[in-house]
């Protein structure tokens, strides 16, 4: 059969439109169709088969089918082709079959191809894993054996040195052998670490730990590295009274490595360690450890490759270039992010940010409560510290200085009143507030509120306050009574703490002060040994002959003052236990001086027992975790 020219043009137009085809190509398809109908050539079938093979997708096949359907429907609807209907139908069936079968064949082929590729990839992957595993096992085995042998070598070198037999040049050779062995041992340890991390065998032991104590350990370890260096080290640490969940030892490894690098590449200037609390929720705290130096810095290219293994940009400094690679991997393993910025000649800053779970619902820790403080007193001793302490323990604190605002606040409470309302005011005003409290207690929302009068002085008669304190109320009154179950847990925990054998050294020139301190500590922790020194020299003598877990030193003493005593203690054992300053003189500058001197913290006189016991319990926790 032969197509009429106008019908042929219509078909060409349809084909061009559907496949977005150039008109010349569409005309060629029209010619093929005509020749196929005339039985002259099978070119149309081959072309479509090839296109389908080339395109290899079901949508294209469907489009071809639809196009053919439209074309044949168009031709069958024309009267001119009535006599050719049977021929057209036969041709259409043939065509449909060809597209359908071809599509199925290609689908099958694609599936088989995919399966083959998958099998090949799987085999390659298995082979690679086997090779890697064998390599790792080999490296791990060799490194382990090397380390064992190196330990023996270092041990024998130390023995020879101790005997002091070698002199002059021989002694120098021995020193060199010792240095080389140390370098080799560090390299082997690094390789072992990398192998462990890569093999997923780097063990992370998660426990709750005090962040500030972990930082103190890092700073302690730095002392030797800073020796003979013209570098000023400074640590700025946000107040972290919290315990967080993590592997403290791994954190120390990361921070120490970054600090050691900073010191290594800084010939003069500074190295700063900043520990910042980025954000905090009820469950977690995001912390950034920042190590900044004024050292030689890195180029953009070096910065890009700094975490790659064996990246060494300065061959004049010792090391093999594995430290940052390990630290980077370790940081990832701990769920943190390690970044760096640097400029040649100006220095580098490494930042390690990590979010850690806070210790919560621990027995003794209290659910979040709201405390409202009203004080029109100019200054109440220790008030700021009390507010700070409560906030750090998750309390919501509202403070008022204006009586009008405070009363308006109380009278406009609708849903929930504060758990505790504490008032510190003048004698006459207490009586007015007592009347107000009488009224508030008739309102349902104040049913569970405790009203506290603080700093009342000796003579004031108040009927409606729940608790009255002549001085500052003890911190314990803000803590909610635990449930029976919690109490049991607290008792179990407290029992362990009570039984911990702790060695404490307390230094104060006033014997009574020492005895009182001893009495309070011994009552709470009967298993502790508390040695008392009434002066600096006596303290140094005691410290030399015994290992203490915690030291308390009064700052103002005749003879050696607290700062001088600390300075001397630092030189004795190398490692200083947590050492706290005791003083009745609290100025803002005192905190700075104490921190700069290297004290772990400051305890004010009169001693707030909650804070004293919290300090001791930190040390107990640390000791029990070791």
């Amino acid at each position, binding site marked *: 059969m032969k197509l009429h020219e106008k019908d042929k043009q219509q078909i060409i137009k349809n084909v061009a439109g559907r496949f977005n085809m150039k008109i010349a190509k569409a005309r060629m398809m029209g010619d093929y169709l005509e020749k196929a109908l005339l039985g002259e050539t099978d070119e149309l079938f081959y072309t479509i088969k090839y296109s389908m093979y080339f395109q290899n997708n079901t949508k294209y096949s469907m489009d071809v089918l639809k196009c053919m359907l439209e074309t044949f429907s168009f031709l069958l609807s024309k009267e001119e082709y009535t006599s050719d209907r049977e021929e057209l139908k036969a041709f259409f069936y043939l065509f449909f079959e060809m597209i359908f079968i071809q599509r199925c064949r290609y689908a099958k082929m694609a599936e088989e191809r995919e399966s083959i590729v998958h099998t090949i990839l799987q085999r390659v992957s298995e082979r690679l894993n086997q090779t890697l595993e064998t390599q790792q096992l080999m490296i791990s085995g060799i490194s382990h054996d090397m380390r064992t042998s190196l330990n023996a070598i270092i041990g024998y070198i130390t023995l020879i040195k101790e005997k002091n037999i070698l002199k002059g040049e021989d002694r120098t050779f021995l020193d060199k052998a010792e240095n080389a062995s140390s370098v080799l041992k560090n390299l082997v340890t690094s390789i072992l670490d990398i192998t462990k991390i890569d093999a997923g065998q780097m063990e992370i032991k998660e426990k709750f730990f005090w962040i500030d104590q972990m930082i103190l350990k890092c700073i302690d370890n730095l002392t030797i590295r800073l020796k003979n260096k013209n570098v000023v080290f400074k640590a700025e640490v946000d107040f972290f009274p919290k315990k967080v969940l993590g592997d403290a030892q791994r954190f120390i490894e990361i921070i120490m490595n970054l600090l050691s690098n900073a010191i290594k590449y800084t010939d003069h200037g500074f190295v700063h360690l900043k520990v910042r609390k980025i954000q905090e929720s009820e469950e977690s705290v995001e912390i950034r450890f920042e190590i900044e130096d004024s050292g030689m810095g890195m180029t953009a290219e070096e910065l890009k490759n700094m975490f790659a293994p064996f990246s060494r940009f300065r061959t004049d400094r010792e090391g093999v270039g594995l430290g940052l690679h390990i630290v980077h991997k370790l940081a990832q393993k701990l769920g943190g992010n390690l970044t760096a910025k640097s400029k040649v000649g100006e220095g580098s800053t490494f930042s390690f940010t990590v979010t850690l779970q806070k210790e919560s619902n621990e027995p003794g820790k209290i659910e979040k409560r709201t405390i409202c403080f009203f004080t029109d007193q100019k200054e109440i001793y220790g008030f700021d510290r009390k507010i700070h302490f409560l906030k750090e323990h998750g309390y919501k604190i509202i403070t008022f200085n204006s009586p009008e605002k405070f009363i308006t606040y109380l009278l406009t409470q609708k849903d929930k009143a504060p758990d505790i309302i504490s008032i510190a005011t003048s004698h006459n005003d207490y009586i007015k507030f007592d009347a107000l409290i009488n009224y508030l207690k008739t309102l349902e929302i104040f049913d569970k509120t405790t009203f506290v009068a603080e700093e009342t002085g*000796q003579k004031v008669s108040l009927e409606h306050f729940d608790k009255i304190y002549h001085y500052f109320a003890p911190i314990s009154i803000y803590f909610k009574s635990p449930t029976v179950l919690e109490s049991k847990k607290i008792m179990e925990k407290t029992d362990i703490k009570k039984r911990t054998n702790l060695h404490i050294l307390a230094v104060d020139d*006033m014997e009574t002060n020492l005895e009182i301190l001893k009495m309070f500590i011994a*009552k709470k922790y009967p298993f502790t040994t508390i040695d008392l020194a009434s002066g600096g020299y006596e303290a140094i003598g005691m410290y030399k002959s015994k290992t203490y877990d915690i030291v308390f030193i009064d700052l*103002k003493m005749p003879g050696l003052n607290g700062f001088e005593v600390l300075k001397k203690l630092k030189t004795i054992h190398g490692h200083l236990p947590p050492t706290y300053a005791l003083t009745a003189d609290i100025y803002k500058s005192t905190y700075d001086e104490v921190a700069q001197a290297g004290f772990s913290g400051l305890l004010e006189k*009169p001693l707030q027992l909650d804070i004293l016991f919290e300090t001791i319990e930190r040390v107990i926790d640390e000791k029990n975790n070791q």
Partner: protein
Amino acid sequence: MKKTISETEAIAYNYLKAFGFPEEQITPLVDQAKKDLQENLTRLETLLHEDKVSIDEVNSVLHALKGLLFNLGNHALAEKLNEIRSHPESEATLEEISRLLFDVE
């Protein structure tokens, strides 16, 4: 001086008792405290009667007394001493110290 010591003794006794310490522990401690108080107050009295009063030394003894009084629970007197220590150079301050600690009118 006697008044200061006896007042502090009474406060200290109640203060330590409130913490649940037994009498056999409190009594020797309070005795020791009285000795310390006596010693420091005497030292202060001597300093105040010298021809040229040494503010630094007065301050130092006041500091020791403040800490001791705080520890013995006499917070009111300790805080008054603390206030005085912030401006110890005036004649009025020295008189205030005498009035507070030595019952001098």
